[in-house]
């Protein structure tokens, strides 16, 4: 089976799922004939495996080669200024491994050595400063888990169901444990006396790459929970995520999480850069556009079963699994519907106490007897906000806002165990 899967395209794999339902569930479970995997001595039980140091830095085993980032080539003009998608269909728990966490570059992922790294703070500060990488490591350090979601996640689904895979509909997200220092500590080091009243001040942050992507962040957020991070999930950031230093802006759209952070400027106004005017602004139905839509509202999605994760084990016990998150704080509840939103049951949250502004895993432990299901998940966060339906969103915003689509997603599960991206009335 594994060999067969490795030799087929994903779509063929999806079609193959049907046959699998009927056939394989049996394999291990059927009594009667003894299982040769048990009765016969297997190679791996007789010969030795690889020694230590065979792979000084390990990669996933070859059988997991399907669990990779993928892009949608027609979305952008060029992969150097583009995005790809986290394989969330195949992950569990909440932490996203760096190697498969989505990438979004405006001028490609650059290679910037720690020795060549400089961070400048200037503008309305008492003393403009330049820091080296080592300087940053000498500030008090913090560790926090946060999700990073591109504002355009699910953006292709505004006008209708388009992409058949949760990786593509919801994969512009990752969730990592960051180690770094608070932006507040850095601003303090430069001194904010020169800024006067902080209430109407901003920090403008920009990257060292060729796009020098820059965004304006209101001072209140800058002094609240923003991190200047250099490690993720315990190890150095990957180059595609901003090695050696990136900004972490908890709960706010991914574009503000400046990678290869090189400059922080205290200003008395928003710079109104390209990424906060012509992009990352949300066109409403009447043609006016919302700007400064920074927070990511509560959202959830079932990751399995889903189009890339058909049910292959046949009827009986089934774990429905998914992810929920909110830029406003903790996820307090996730409900799951099997009938397209007519009725709901409350799912079990997979972590005892979810982190604020971090992914929460949910499970619904259930039984499937081959029914047609219209599967949906609906998240609630600690502010009492309930994830809206796509129609509710479209009623307020129309279909052209691209960004901030946090609608309830529907998967149609058929009798064969295959799932499809659909919209329902």
């Amino acid at each position, binding site marked *: 089976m594994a060999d067969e*899967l*490795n*030799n*087929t395209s*994903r779509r063929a794999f999806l079609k193959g799922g049907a046959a699998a339902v009927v056939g394989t569930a049996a394999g291990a479970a059927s009594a009667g004939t003894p299982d040769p995997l048990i009765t016969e001595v297997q190679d791996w039980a007789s010969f030795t495996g690889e020694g230590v140091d065979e792979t000084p830095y390990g990669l996933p085993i070859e059988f997991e*080669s399907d669990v*990779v980032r*993928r892009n*949608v080539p027609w979305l952008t*003009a*060029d992969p*150097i200024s583009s995005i790809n998608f986290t394989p969330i269909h195949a992950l569990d728990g909440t932490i996203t491994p760096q190697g498969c966490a989505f990438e979004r570059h405006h*001028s490609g992922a650059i290679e910037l050595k720690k020795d060549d790294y400089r961070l*400048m703070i*200037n503008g309305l500060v008492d003393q*403009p*400063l*330049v820091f080296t990488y080592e*300087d940053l490591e000498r*500030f008090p350090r913090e560790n926090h888990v946060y999700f990073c979601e591109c504002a355009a996640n699910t953006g292709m689904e505004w006008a209708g*169901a388009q*992409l*058949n895979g949760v990786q593509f509909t919801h994969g512009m997200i990752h969730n990592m444990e960051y180690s770094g220092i608070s932006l507040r500590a850095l601003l*303090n*080091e430069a001194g904010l006396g020169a800024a006067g009243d*902080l*209430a109407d001040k901003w920090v403008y942050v920009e990257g060292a790459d*060729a*796009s*020098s992507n*820059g965004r304006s962040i*209101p*001072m*209140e957020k800058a*002094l609240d929970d923003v991190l200047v991070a250099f490690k993720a999930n315990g190890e150095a950031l990957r180059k595609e995520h901003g090695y050696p230093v990136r900004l972490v802006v908890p709960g706010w759209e991914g574009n503000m999480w400046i990678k290869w952070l090189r*400059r922080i400027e205290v200003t008395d*106004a928003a*710079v*109104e*850069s390209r990424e906060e*005017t*012509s992009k990352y602004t949300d*066109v409403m139905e009447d*043609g006016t556009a*919302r*700007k400064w839509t*920074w*927070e990511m509202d509560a959202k959830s999605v079932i990751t399995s079963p889903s189009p890339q994760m058909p049910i292959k084990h046949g009827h009986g016990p089934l774990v429905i699994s998914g992810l929920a998150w909110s830029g406003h704080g903790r996820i307090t509840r996730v*409900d799951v519907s099997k009938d397209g939103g*007519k009725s*709901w049951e409350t799912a079990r949250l997979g972590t005892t106490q979810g982190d604020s502004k971090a992914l929460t895993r949910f499970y619904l432990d259930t039984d499937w007897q081959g029914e047609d299901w219209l599967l949906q998940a609906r998240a*609630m966060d600690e*502010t009492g906000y309930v994830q809206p339906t796509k129609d*509710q969103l479209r009623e307020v915003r129309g279909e*052209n806002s691209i960004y901030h689509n946090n609608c309830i997603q529907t998967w*149609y599960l058929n009798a064969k165990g295959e799932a499809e991206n*659909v*919209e*329902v*009335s």
Partner: protein
Amino acid sequence: MSKFLKVSAAVLMMASPAVAGDSLGLGRPALPEEIAAWDIDVLPDGRGLPEGRGDAFTGEEVFAEKCASCHGDFAEGVDNWPVLAGGFDTLADKDPVKTVGSYWPYLSTVWDYVNRSMPFGAAQTLTEDEVYAIVAYILYSNDLVDDDFELSHENFAEFEMHNQGGFIQDDRAALEYPMWRVEPCMTDCKESVEITMRASILDVTPDEGAAEGEEQTAAVVEEVVEEEAPVEAVTALDPELVKKGEKVFKKCKACHQVGAKAKNKTGPVLNGIMGRGFASIDGFKYSKVFKAAADEGRMWDEAEMAAFLTKPKAYLKGTKMSFAGLKKEADVAAIIEYLKSVDD
């Protein structure tokens, strides 16, 4: 107004002990020259603009040379690259055309973005006057000014963009949250449910599985191995230099592709370029000078390539390649070695 802009006094008070706290004495003062080099942002009121000027007529030439390969001669956009002109009065349509003219609220944003991020693959190579000229031309291509219009630091602030009033601050907190912060329905929430749309009908999902991709890579590797053997016997490529050249080639990747899946982009595919005739890659629209060189029968040997890569514009005046050139001879040598290794 967002709740974040109605800054709560409490949070700032809470933050203020830290803000006023003792510094750790880390970092060093930023020098004025350093700040000047990096602090190049321009605000809507024109603060941050350097002195300079450029007219739309001049801008048209600069644009044709440095921008048109992606954005089109008339800023109409090539392939999936951004359209910069037109689209007026389409923002409420089914498919709004969001261009500099129809959508961008501030001229400062155009100046700042062109200056810091463009041209793609050669950022920060434009002179200040060139940026003024390009911005003037983009306005002209949007029919917002005449072709003799000159933009400068002096008249910059006077210019108001078409869609400046078209933006409102995030109003989700007022408009949406009260609606959606309610106890949700759990049973009998709808009378009936019908499927109204299916992704499989449209079917734009990418088709490449990882397994398939891997297979292709494996096949390519085999091919390369098979073909490289005889080539190596003749030319004996220096593998170290090839490796170095591959790194330098990153500077070219914004426009040029190599390898089995390579396609012509802003620049032509470079597989097997060494030893080929000029302007000989199928399907690429070459500039006049390149076609003329091809007619003369010129071939890409090491000397031609080295001269071209060192100073592209001086070597072939009129080339569309907007690359400043490689300063280090070692880089040129490495990249030529690398190009030799990427055979057809």
